[in-house]
Every structure is written in structure tokens, then in C-alpha cells.
């Protein structure tokens, strides 16, 4: 049965969303269409042949037509790059019926080049995000943060190869974000990383540079880290302290807590159930408007088990950055 007879609404209804992976779009969508018998094995074969021909062309371009064979590892990387570009082209189309029609009627090589155009736009956007992240940077001596902003991200962007290795990002981006993406690849990974870094910077910049520097210094001293060296997410350190400052309704610009304040928080929250405590902290986080509220909430949800344990075991003063 051909998909062409199915209207958009019915097609959307039938497709199992969980089976479609946007980081493996063509493959997962084709699998889903096959499962639902919305396309035939013959139509899937046409797609396979299209990919096979495109891979052959790309291998020729890769070797400048000087080698008919390649190491399997290299050929595999080119195939993944081909699929990545095609995925990018298809993700530009919002109507699922058009997507299905496109993969059945458009030559794969044309989709590969369309994807490349989309990737180049994403590269420009990513370069803009890098400029923004640098402009809003924190003035701290953390080498991982500074090296990533000044060197690694630019190198990754410069060396990004949308022809043959578009699914890969080379180089080491050492600075850890509060939430690491395990699903994004290629330029989407780089763009996603920078979007999150900008959000984290925006949150941190709600606070005075001097207060951030004071917090960072206490954090390093307490953990015996040289000021340049801790490989930690700066936003998370700020966010956790800001959260409990907000809970205590302290001056909105302050970050550092005292040990006594940590003890008070433990007394206030200690007897609550985990659920009530979690809800109260979520409510507190929702009052913090810096950065992106939904990102803040995601980070809180990730940190919550650690916070709960610290409160229950009277270790909040160690979990947060607190001075005597």
C-alpha cells in the first residue's frame, strides 16, 4: 500500500512517535513506515539503492576519483555523514506527508545537498551563539570554561566538515554543562551546547561579578582546588546557592550562604517528605526568573536527589557553598 493515499492527519495518527528518532530520522521513519505497511519493501529498496549510489558518488569525491576503495571505517563515516545531511534536509519539512513524499521521490544526492545548505545556515547560527556566549562570559579563572570559550568551540566550528563527517564534532569541548546531551550529533550538538551555555551565562549574569567571584573562591578553597582547575559546571554551583537564597528570601543579588543558614534550611525542610520538599523547591525555583526557567527546572530536577540526600544527612553546608 502506498502512503500517497493517506492524508497528513491520518499519517500523523498512525505513526508511533516513540519509534521516530530525530537523530536517526531517515532510518527510523522508514522503519516505522515499513512497520505500518505505509510503504512497501520495494519502495524501501529504492531508498537503499539511492543511498548506495550516493555513497559511491561521495566516495569518488572523497578520493578525488583516485581510489575505487576505502577503509570500511572511512566509508562508514561517509555513509553516516550522508544520512545526517539527508536527515537535516528532511527535518526542514514540517509536514510529515511531504517528508514521506520527498524521500520516495527526491534523489538522495539532492537531499544530501539540501541538507548541506541547512547545515551551513546552522553553522552561521552557531557562530552567532559562540559570539554571544563569549560576550556574556563569566570573569572567572576557570581554565576549562575559558579554554572552551576561547579555543575549543571555535576549533570545532572551523574544522566541522559538512561534506564527509557532518555527524561528527572534532576536538575536546572540556567544559561540562549542567545537562549534557547524549542524543545530538554534528552541528546540532555544537549548536545545542552553545544555546545551553548562553542560557547558563544569562542566569549567572543576573548576579554581580564580585559575588560570583566570592562564591567561586569559597568553593575552590573549600575543596582545595587551584582556582584555575576545577572541572565543574559553574552555573550549577551558582544555581544551587541561588535556589536556597531565594528559599530564605535573602537579598536577590546574594549567593553565598553561611553554615548557620544551611543548618536553618535543614531544620525547616528536614521533617518534610521527599515529595513535599521537592515540590517546595520547585516552587522556589519557579520564582527565579534569571536565564531560562524551564532549563532551571530541568537542572533542579537533576540535582534534586543530591539535594534531598544532603538535607537528610545534614550535609547541606558541604553540598552548597557556605562560609563560616
Amino acid at each position, binding site marked *: 500500500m502506498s502512503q500517497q493515499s493517506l492524508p497528513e492527519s491520518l499519517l500523523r495518527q498512525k505513526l508511533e512517535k516513540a519509534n521516530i528518532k530525530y537523530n536517526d530520522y531517515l532510518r527510523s521513519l522508514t522503519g516505522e513506515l515499513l512497520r505500518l505497511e505505509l510503504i512497501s519493501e520495494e519502495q524501501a529498496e529504492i531508498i537503499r539503492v539511492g543511498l548506495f549510489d550516493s555513497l559511491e558518488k561521495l566516495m569518488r569525491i572523497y578520493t578525488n576519483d*583516485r581510489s575505487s576503495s576505502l577503509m570500511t571505517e572511512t566509508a562508514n563515516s561517509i555513509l553516516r555523514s550522508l*544520512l545526517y545531511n539527508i536527515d537535516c534536509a528532511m527535518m526542514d519539512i514540517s509536514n510529515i506527508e511531504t517528508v514521506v513524499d520527498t524521500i520516495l521521490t527526491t534523489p538522495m544526492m539532492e537531499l544530501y545537498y539540501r541538507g548541506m545548505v541547512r547545515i551551513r545556515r546552522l553553522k552561521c547560527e552557531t557562530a552567532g551563539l559562540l559570539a554571544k556566549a563569549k560576550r556574556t562570559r563569566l570573569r572567572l579563572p576557570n581554565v576549562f570554561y575559558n579554554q572552551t570559550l576561547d579555543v575549543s568551540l571555535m576549533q570545532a566550528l572551523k574544522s566541522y566538515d559538512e561534506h564527509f563527517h557532518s555527524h561528527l564534532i572534532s576536538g575536546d569541548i572540556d567544559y561540562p554543562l549542567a545537562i549534557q546531551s547524549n542524543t545530538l550529533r554534528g552541528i546540532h550538538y555544537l549548536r545545542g551546547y552553545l544555546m545551553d551555555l548562553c542560557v547558563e551565562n544569562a542566569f549567572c549574569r543576573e548576579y554581580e561579578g564580585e559575588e560570583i567571584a566570592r562564591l567561586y573562591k569559597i568553593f575552590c578553597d573549600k575543596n582545595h582546588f587551584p582556582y584555575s582547575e576545577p572541572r565543574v559546571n559553574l552555573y550549577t554551583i551558582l544555581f544551587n546557592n541561588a535556589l536556597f537564597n531565594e528559599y530564605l528570601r535573602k537579598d536577590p543579588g546574594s549567593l553565598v550562604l553561611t553554615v548557620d543558614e544551611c543548618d536553618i534550611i535543614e531544620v525547616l525542610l528536614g521533617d518534610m517528605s521527599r515529595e513535599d520538599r521537592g515540590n517546595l523547591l520547585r516552587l522556589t525555583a519557579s520564582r527565579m526568573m534569571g536565564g531560562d526557567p524551564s532549563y532551571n527546572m530541568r537542572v533542579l530536577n537533576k540535582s534534586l536527589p543530591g539535594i534531598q540526600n544532603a538535607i537528610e544527612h545534614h550535609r547541606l553546608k558541604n553540598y552548597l557553598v557556605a562560609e563560616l
Partner: protein
Amino acid sequence: MKNNRGLFNIGTVLAMNRSNDEEYSRQLLALNDTIDQYGIVLTAEQTRDLLSTRQRALNENHRVEMGVGAVIPLAKKFAGSAYLDAGNFADGMNIILEMFYYYKTETRDVIPDDDLIDMLYEWFEYKYQGDLELMQNDYFDKAGKNAAEENAEEYDELIAEQDS
């Protein structure tokens, strides 16, 4: 849900390439129009043997080749050898094919097909005077691995000199 991984992976591509062997065999037979001037004619069975050797050599050397690949230019070149004739051409080509793909991988792909074919031909024709066994012993055993790498380095240096 059915696993989609097999839909479009490199294994599928390799399988598709192998499924074209009949077409590749026809292309090799068509080569007879060119090499019969040397008194050499490949039979259908010999072309199948060559394709089977090619596939084994590709697998052993972790390579992927689209289309019939290097077999045709190799056969055209070696058909002109003074040491190969209708009686030993097919057997010789099987060994040369193995050497070719071995060298491609061991030299990390820096030597283009045409240059490598010329190099192998010169060794076979002038250095080893048609002695494939000796050539294999020198360049195709464990020690040959080093020789192949040295050749790649020499080739890199040569190209760098030419570029400068």
C-alpha cells in the same frame, strides 16, 4: 518493533555491492575485447574467481569498494606483462589483487590506485622479473607491513617535494 539498524548501514551497502557480482562478471568478460591483443582471454569461471578473491581481499583488509573497482585497471595493466600469458594470467591476477588491497590499507590510502598499480607492475616486471612468489615474500608477509608503511612515507615525502 523491528530493529531499523540494518536498513541503511554499511553492512547493507556491502551486501548490495556483492549482489551486483553478476553485472561485475559481465564487465570483466567485456575486458577480453581489450586484453585479447596479448593472447589472454578470461573465462566466466575465472572472472568469478577474481571477484571472489577481490571480495576476500577487501574483507581481510577492512575495505569497501563500490562497483567492480580496481580489477579492471589492474588486469589491463598486467595483461601487457612479459611474464603473464593465457596460462598463468588468471592465477597471477588473483595474487596481484590480494597484494593491491593489502597495500592500499597498509599505506593508509595515501597512494592513488593508478600509482599503486604502476608501482606493483614495475616491481613485478623489472625488480622481480615475474617472480610473484618472491615478490610476495618480500612485500606481503609480516615484514612487508613495514615495507608498505615505508613506501607510504616515501610517497608522502615525494609528493611534498613535488608540491613545494
